[in-house]
């Protein structure tokens, strides 16, 4: 019974996306720290993560139960430097801000779901 409380679709989705957002932030941190390191290749979330999540939600592929987010080398990034480093600082900073906003939104969704449960259970509407 307790378990069923937290089975909401959006709630589960938001939680997994939160994991992904934190992981992505760490990837961006690594990229920015190594912006000048010779030969370093930028990393990011595996691009198929969102599609995998959506598929798992709709039950399209029976085997794909909640895929785990992972970081991998970004194959689409091009290198403009002779030493092979393909980090572009402006792009990383932009992704940093965007990921931060996404994290904020997702934690709001999680909070909303938890608060609704609390209001429904206790009959006390909080401000």
């Amino acid at each position, binding site marked *: 019974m307790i378990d069923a409380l937290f089975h909401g*679709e959006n709630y589960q989705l938001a939680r997994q996306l939160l994991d992904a957002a934190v992981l992505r932030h760490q990837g961006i941190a690594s990229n920015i720290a190594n912006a000048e390191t010779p030969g370093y290749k930028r990393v990011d979330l595996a691009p198929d993560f969102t599609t995998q999540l959506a598929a798992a939600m709709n039950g399209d592929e029976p085997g794909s139960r909640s895929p785990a987010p992972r970081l991998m080398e970004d194959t689409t990034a091009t290198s403009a430097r002779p030493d092979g480093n393909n980090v572009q600082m402006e792009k990383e900073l932009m992704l940093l801000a965007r990921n931060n*906003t996404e994290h904020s*939104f*997702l934690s709001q*969704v999680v909070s*909303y779901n938890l608060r609704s449960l609390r209001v429904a259970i206790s009959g*006390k*509407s909080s401000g």
Partner: protein
Amino acid sequence: MLNAIGNLTSAAQSLPVAPNQLERLGRAGKPADVSPLKGAHEFGNLFNKLIDDVGATRQTAAAETQRVMLGQSDQLHTAMISLQESSLALNLMVEVRNKLVESYQELMRTPV
């Protein structure tokens, strides 16, 4: 939705039955066009409608939020607003229910 709330509150106010209507009940002997009972029906319908309305806001919020989370929409503000609206709607419904329970309990305490 605000209309429904207005109607609800006036219906709730008429719960303790007005004296002249009670008289009519006693004299006529039959419910026919008795306002309190009719009020109770309307009242029940209104409350059901409130529940439906709140449910609808939650559906909208869930759908909009999911679209943003899956990357199908970048309108963050739409999702945020629908989340807050639905949260407020739930709070409102709970408050109305609490007030009703309170009034009912007070009514039951009235010495006959």
